[in-house]
């Protein structure tokens, strides 16, 4: 509204300026000059639009008629002045029309230009957005590629580690077999050699030869028993969950480790619950876990001289109906720093350890849906415990 008032006001001022200019020109004896009015109308129409233009034209016509067309200072027109006046009106109308039309064309052009610019800006913005989205997508895809590569590498690493573990486990077990077999083998070789030498004597020492051969038979059987007993641990097989007498498994493991324990001067104590329900598990894998725990216990006690070396194996039924197995030693125990990491692969506190035993044992127990954990003993040493679910069909 204010803008409109300004436009009309400016129109009136310009017309007034034209009047002043015409009066000025009269004094300079320039008669019948009406161009300042046309200019004022054109300028007002151009800048103010059609409305102020019309007003300026009407004001100019009135001013020309009143002030400059004889008879002066009234609204009459002498007939001889009429063509002049009418030509003024026509010229004023024409300059109004031309200026208005030009202004409209100019405005239309401006609008078109603005629309175009807006459209271009919008398209540019859209393009920019699309571009940004594309860039983001590329980054995302690259990240996804990297992640996939990383996870593939991690998988490959895990598989390689697993393969290594299996190989190491096999090597370790083979070393155990080799050691268990060495004693009877030594005896067999010595007896066989003794037999040959007895027979070569003149006369042959048949009594001694007989004695040596019976020794060979005995030790051959002993070696075979060791191999078949440990062979069960080596067989690569899937776990098969069945009802297991955990006390029997403990007995087998003690059978395998008793001689090592005796050599180390370790006293073995057992506290096995009688009438323990059968546990649900794979006896061969459980044997492996127990063997590992017992061997760890023996290793832990090797450096201990100031107290008695005692290995304790317990089994019992817990109040929440699981079978609990406990392997306790009086060895060097666990530093708190180690306690959190002992179940990690390749983490070891032994000079010649592989760091695999507890890691494998824990995965085996986890595969049984249970857990293996370590707790500080009341006495010096370490206590390892694991639980097993009770077999659904109870043994009677």
């Amino acid at each position: 509204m204010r803008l409109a008032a300004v436009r009309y006001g400016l129109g009136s001022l310009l017309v007034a300026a034209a009047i002043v200019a015409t009066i000025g020109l009269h004094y300079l004896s320039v008669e019948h000059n009406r161009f300042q009015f046309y200019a004022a109308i054109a300028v007002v129409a151009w800048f103010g639009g059609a409305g102020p233009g019309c007003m300026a034209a009407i004001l100019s016509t009135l001013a020309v008629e009143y002030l400059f067309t004889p008879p002066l200072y009234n609204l009459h027109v002498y007939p001889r002045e009429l063509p002049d006046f009418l030509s003024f009106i026509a010229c004023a109308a024409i300059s109004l029309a031309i200026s208005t039309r030009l202004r409209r064309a100019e405005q239309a052009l401006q609008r078109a230009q603005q629309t175009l610019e807006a459209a271009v800006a919008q398209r540019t913005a859209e393009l920019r957005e699309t571009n940004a989205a594309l860039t983001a997508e590329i980054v995302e895809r690259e990240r996804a590629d990297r992640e996939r590569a990383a996870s593939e590498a991690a998988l490959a690493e895990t598989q390689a580690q697993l393969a290594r573990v299996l190989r190491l486990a096999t090597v370790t077990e083979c070393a155990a077999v080799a050691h268990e077999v060495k004693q009877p083998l030594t005896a067999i070789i010595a007896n066989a050699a003794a037999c040959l030498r007895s027979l070569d004597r003149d006369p042959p020492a048949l009594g001694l030869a007989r004695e040596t051969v019976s020794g060979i038979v005995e030790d051959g059987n002993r070696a075979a028993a060791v191999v078949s007993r440990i062979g069960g641990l080596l067989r690569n097989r899937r776990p098969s969950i069945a009802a297991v007498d955990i006390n029997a498994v403990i007995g087998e493991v003690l059978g395998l480790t008793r001689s090592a324990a005796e050599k180390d001067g370790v006293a073995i104590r057992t506290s096995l619950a009688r009438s323990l329900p059968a546990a649900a598990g794979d006896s061969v894998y459980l044997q492996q876990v127990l063997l590992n725990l017992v061997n760890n216990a023996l290793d832990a006690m090797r450096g201990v001289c100031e107290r008695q070396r005692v290995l304790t194996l317990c089994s019992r039924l817990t109040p929440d109906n699981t079978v609990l197995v406990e392997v306790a030693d009086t060895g060097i125990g666990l530093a708190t720093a180690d306690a959190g990491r002992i179940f990690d692969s390749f983490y070891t506190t032994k000079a010649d350890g592989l760091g695999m035993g507890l890691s494998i044992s824990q995965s085996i127990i986890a595969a049984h849906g249970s857990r293996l954990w370590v707790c500080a003993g009341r006495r010096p040493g370490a206590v390892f415990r694991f639980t097993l679910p009770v077999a659904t069909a109870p043994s009677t």
Partner: protein
Amino acid sequence: MEAAPVVFVIDDDASVRSALSNLLRSVGLRTEVFASPQEFMHNAEPDGPACIVLDVRFPGRSGLDLQRDLTAANRPLPIIFMTGHGDIPMTVRAMKAGAVEFLTKPFRDQDLLDAVAVALDKDRVRRAGEKRLDELRARLGTLTPREREVLQLVIVGRLNKQIAGELGVSEMTVKIHRRHMMRKMQASRIVELVRIADQLGLSGTAAQ
């Protein structure tokens, strides 16, 4: 003459010790078997050349401990060690402490028999040396105190006159003591007497 050589087999595995005993008996050696070093320590001193075939690992005291104990007790019997694991540091320790051989189970019969032969020879030489020393000690024991004094002075090179002066007796008396002393020590010449005194550890500087 010499008592038959004996081989002591010490292993906690019954079948290993009986098999090793069989092998040694098949070549005519006398054997005695023990299940532990402690059991062996109670055994009486052998009267002939002997050696020990010993497993390294035992509950309680190890084979290396027995080796140390025997050396400390002045019973330096040659030892052949056996082990189930080829443990290099242990081998080094045993060999440094004078072991004859270190065999890794299972071993060839000939390796054991060769080692036993070497060990028995070593013990035979040691026993011969000890026997001679005992004999020389016995000879020394027959000397009177005066004869012993004369001996001490003779082996550091004193003349009869000097000895007579030092002991405050006549030269003739010295000559008589000296003749008796040489006869009892079964030495025909001074050089021989000096060697005997050396074997007995009679220091030439003692009398000075």
